[in-house]
């Protein structure tokens, strides 16, 4: 997690930071190193700790703080929670990946447990059903035991927490939420709830995830379904009570199933939530659920949580549901590029179980039955899609209202002149000088089949032809050549680098090989304090990577998957692009795949 593949106990980290006075205080006073030390990571890890904290925990802190301060920034809070859920999701996904990599899944899952326990706490509170809660808690223990991850202290913590929570439950209805929040912060530090006088109600629902046997008729179906995000659009008038009860019923249903497959390890977590628009009036809506179960030879669980909220901006017919739970590029925010790159494929190829849920028990049951039917068919995906895509209401509503749609004026038949400023500045063709187009017939033509270079296709050959074409282009473009900064692309960028600097750059990259999931940019930025990030990145892509690719193209062409960016991050085997251009022996080699071979593609 911190580059050392050491699992981090987020809960512990959170508490340490909290002791220090919270994120802001720690930031302001530069206490991150201290936090790292206190946590037990040793010295000088402040920045990494800060990164981790700000990435995963700062969101959590904020709503808690505002609850304590007595502020009720509703919308923001809701967003925070949504985000927090997403983070947990990401986090768990990361840990799951760890699992794939290692036989020993224990360490990596610790924090996940922590997170899940937090959610369990939430569920327990909201479930309004102590018995069920207890049962669930037991399952938590079972699970932990089963995984031999049990940490006695932790379990006690959880016990204490659940007791506290239960006590709170007996309190007054309105106060409950407030107190819950405080309780959470004191005991575990988790998302609080609030309920204000205006009648805003929010609800945490709980989602469940189960690792079940494939033989389970309902959940064991192979294939990850698309369209399983369930959202019932029919019951506009459902109120909180209904939601709660259906959740409870759902729980019972789940429980029964679990018992019937007692061999299986089951698991739960997740929250969904409702909000309603404070302006128009409260109309709580059900939540949306989406859970992915994941099975492997081991029982393994991945939780996906999706949160949704509904709004009523205007009009009475339309329900607006906006959901934020999916990330576009989860892999872009993770440090271990190699592993995460395959996240999507892994999830998919895993024949995970996807259980779509809705707060409405009716729609859930309907879904369940259709799932069951389809399990006998070849794929869940197909049947669901063909049955539901075209015939049932859509799962996600497009939000409507002045905050979402563009203002499109009625067409009056008259046209409006556009502001001529938009025409921009013509850069080419040049207005003053008539462009000299030297070789009109060559547009779209590829490279020539052969040239007079000593070794065709060698680095030097390529360089020569590039220089040739640059000169011609410069002539054609005139000043536009410089306006477009064409004089600053490719290996020309080396002009601004000394050989010493180039070597330093190379060494830094080399000392952070991708095989160790280390990213070299941080070190690069540190190593070249006087160079701007722009110029460093520029050098990397214009010179460094280019030269490395040149080498690969000629020496290990079979190892390059030209469609796979990952190859750019593979271990370098001690060979760098610089050597390509500087070593005379290399330039004597022709590429394995001769450029002169006739191309069949494209004809």
């Amino acid at each position, binding site marked *: 997690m911190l580059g050392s593949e050491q699992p981090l106990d987020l809960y512990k980290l959170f508490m340490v930071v909290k002791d220090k006075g919270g994120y802001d205080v720690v930031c302001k006073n530069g206490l991150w190193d201290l936090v790292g030390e206190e946590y037990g990571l040793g010295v000088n890890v402040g920045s990494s700790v800060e990164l981790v904290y700000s990435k995963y925990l700062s969101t959590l802190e904020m709503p808690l703080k505002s609850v304590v301060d007595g502020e009720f920034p509703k919308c923001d809070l809701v967003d925070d929670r949504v985000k927090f859920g997403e983070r947990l999701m990401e986090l768990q996904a990361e840990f799951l990946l760890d699992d794939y990599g290692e036989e020993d899944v224990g360490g990596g899952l610790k924090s996940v447990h922590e997170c899940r326990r937090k959610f369990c706490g939430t569920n327990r509170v909201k479930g309004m059903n102590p018995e069920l809660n207890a049962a669930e808690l037991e399952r938590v223990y079972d699970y932990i035991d089963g995984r031999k991850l049990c940490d006695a202290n932790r379990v006690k913590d959880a016990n204490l927490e659940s007791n506290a929570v239960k006590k709170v439950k007996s309190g007054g209805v309105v106060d409950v939420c407030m107190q819950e929040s405080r309780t959470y912060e004191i005991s575990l530090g988790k998302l609080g709830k609030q309920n204000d006088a205006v009648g805003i109600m929010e609800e945490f629902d709980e989602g469940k995830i189960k690792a079940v046997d494939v033989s389970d008729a309902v959940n064991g179906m192979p294939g990850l379904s698309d369209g399983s995000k369930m959202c019932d659009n029919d019951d506009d008038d459902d109120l909180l009570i209904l939601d709660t009860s259906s959740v409870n019923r759902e729980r019972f249903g789940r429980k029964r199933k679990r018992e019937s497959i007692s061999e299986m390890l089951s698991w739960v977590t997740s929250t969904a939530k409702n909000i309603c628009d404070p302006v128009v009036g409260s109309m709580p809506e059900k939540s949306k659920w989406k859970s992915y179960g994941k099975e492997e030879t081991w029982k393994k669980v991945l939780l996906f949580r999706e949160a949704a909220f509904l709004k009523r901006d205007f009009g009475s017919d339309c329900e607006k549901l906006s959901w934020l739970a999916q990330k576009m590029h989860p892999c872009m925010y993770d440090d271990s590029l190699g592993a995460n790159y395959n996240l999507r494929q892994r999830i998919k190829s895993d024949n995970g179980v996807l259980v779509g849920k809705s707060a409405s028990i009716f729609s859930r049951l309907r879904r369940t039955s259709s799932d069951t039917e389809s399990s006998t068919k070849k794929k869940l995906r197909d049947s669901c899609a063909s049955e539901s895509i075209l015939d049932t209401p859509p799962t996600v509503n497009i939000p409507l209202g002045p905050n979402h749609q563009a203002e499109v004026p009625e067409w009056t038949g008259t046209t409006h002149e556009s502001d001529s400023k*938009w025409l921009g500045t013509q850069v080419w063709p040049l207005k003053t000088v008539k462009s000299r187009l030297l070789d009109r017939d060559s547009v779209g033509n590829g490279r020539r089949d052969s040239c007079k270079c000593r070794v065709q296709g060698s680095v030097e050959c390529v360089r020569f032809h590039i220089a040739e074409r640059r000169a011609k282009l410069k002539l054609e473009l005139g000043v536009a050549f410089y306006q477009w900064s064409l004089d600053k692309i490719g290996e020309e960028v080396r002009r601004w680098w000394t050989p010493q600097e180039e070597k330093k750059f190379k060494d830094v990259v080399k000392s952070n090989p991708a095989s160790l999931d280390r990213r070299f940019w941080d070190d690069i930025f540190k190593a070249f304090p006087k160079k701007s990030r722009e110029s460093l990145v520029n050098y990397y892509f214009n010179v460094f990577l280019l030269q490395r690719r040149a080498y690969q193209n000629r020496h290990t062409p079979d190892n390059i998957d030209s469609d796979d960016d990952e190859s750019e991050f593979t271990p370098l085997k001690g060979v760098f692009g610089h050597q390509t251009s500087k070593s005379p022996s290399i330039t004597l080699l022709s590429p394995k795949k001769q450029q002169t071979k006739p191309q069949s593609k494209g004809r």
Partner: protein
Amino acid sequence: MLKVLVSIGAFPPHLRLDMMESGGNSLPSGSDGVKRKISYFYDPEVIKPTAAKDRDLCKFHADDYVAFLRGITPETQQDQLRQLKRFNVGEDCPVFDGLYSFCQTYAGGSVGGAVKLNQGVSDIAINWAGGLHHAKKCEASGFCYVNDIVLAILELLKMHERVLYVDIDIHHGDGVEEAFYATDRVMTVSFHKFGDYFPGTGDVRDIGYGTGKYYSLNVPLDDGIDDETYHSLFKPIMGKVMEIFKPGAVVLQCGADSLSGDRLGCFNLSIKGHAECVKYMRSFNVPLLLLGGGGYTIRNVARCWCYETGVALGIELDDKMPQHEYYEYFGPDYALHVAPSNMENKNSRPLLDDIRSKLLENLSRLQHAPSVPFQERPPNTELQERDEDDDDRDERWDPDFDMDVDRNSLSGRVKSEYAEAEHKDSESYHNHLDSRRDTVTTFKDIACSKVTVSRVDSMAVDEPFIKEEQDKLAELSDHRPR
């Protein structure tokens, strides 16, 4: 490589034939190489766009959101956590140096392209830096901050009664769909991966709302779709859309993440298959705005948009890439095209057929829908005459008609219409019509397309795709360490 754009020339005729015949529509060119050689002289312009100002962005976006984008910097973002969350900036949409000017520039490029089309200066305008289709009115999303597409469409709506938006990015074009979800003046059509995929919207059952009902089309697809399968949906659907909706201008978002081998995408389209969408939309001879979008395997993005620039200009580029500064990125084959992979196509034919027939059915409802604009025109004489013109023009867009008709007779027809129009209309409208006719005629008969390529800053036309992606990467790497 740059010369591909900036010089004039012809292409080897033999390269073109295979792809051309595969469409329902023929490109405006003859079948013999000689004529084409003459035909494809063109006059491309490369424009440095005017940066969009606050008030320009606010034509779609909320004032406070724009103000936020203008003010935020990597240094100050810690102080504005609440705002960051509110506007969904920070994760998928990181804050980086120059964020606001980046937004201004790409938005200015797209709007500028739209204006070029409006003024009839260009028939096709390209802004590969644009196409950020996820951005919402008050919220960033999926690396999209400002929705240049919506802004460009709003600009096109000043001149055109109806504008069509087509999205072939692998991600659903949710921002644009949402912006025009309740209007019948913009039809949005998106082809995307659906199911457990960002952004989660794009259900085939999302069809629009209110007067905009049936004006949103969503084509959900699954992993591994290949060229043939893709176009078994794209062409019939887009053909029908053009026939029924009869847009005055088309905006095509060409996200390259639907290509085979994309780092985030999971389709299996070849560059030619992708570009075939451009070719097909171009063949209707309606003003066309080409925009970029996603694309995460950098060299393939460069390949794709380079090739599609060629398609826009009517030039088929040779597969053998000439040497240029970034040549080594394309080794060891140094070829323009990349073979699609052998991944499994998970799209089942029956399901696709269902989707297609469902969408075509929805489209056919438009023909008789009361909200079809022609029937609601204000009783203005000038406008009524306009109607007739529209109808006439519309016929020419019919794919089948277009294919069979003799080019010479068609051109005669265009000219005679133009002549008739001359004595009918008021001065201003006439002028407008004048320029339009010229454009269409030129396009059709001489096949001389003016193409405007909007550029961002100092990026060159071709190589810069790499550079641009670099910048994106740089931004990402800038933010990872924080």
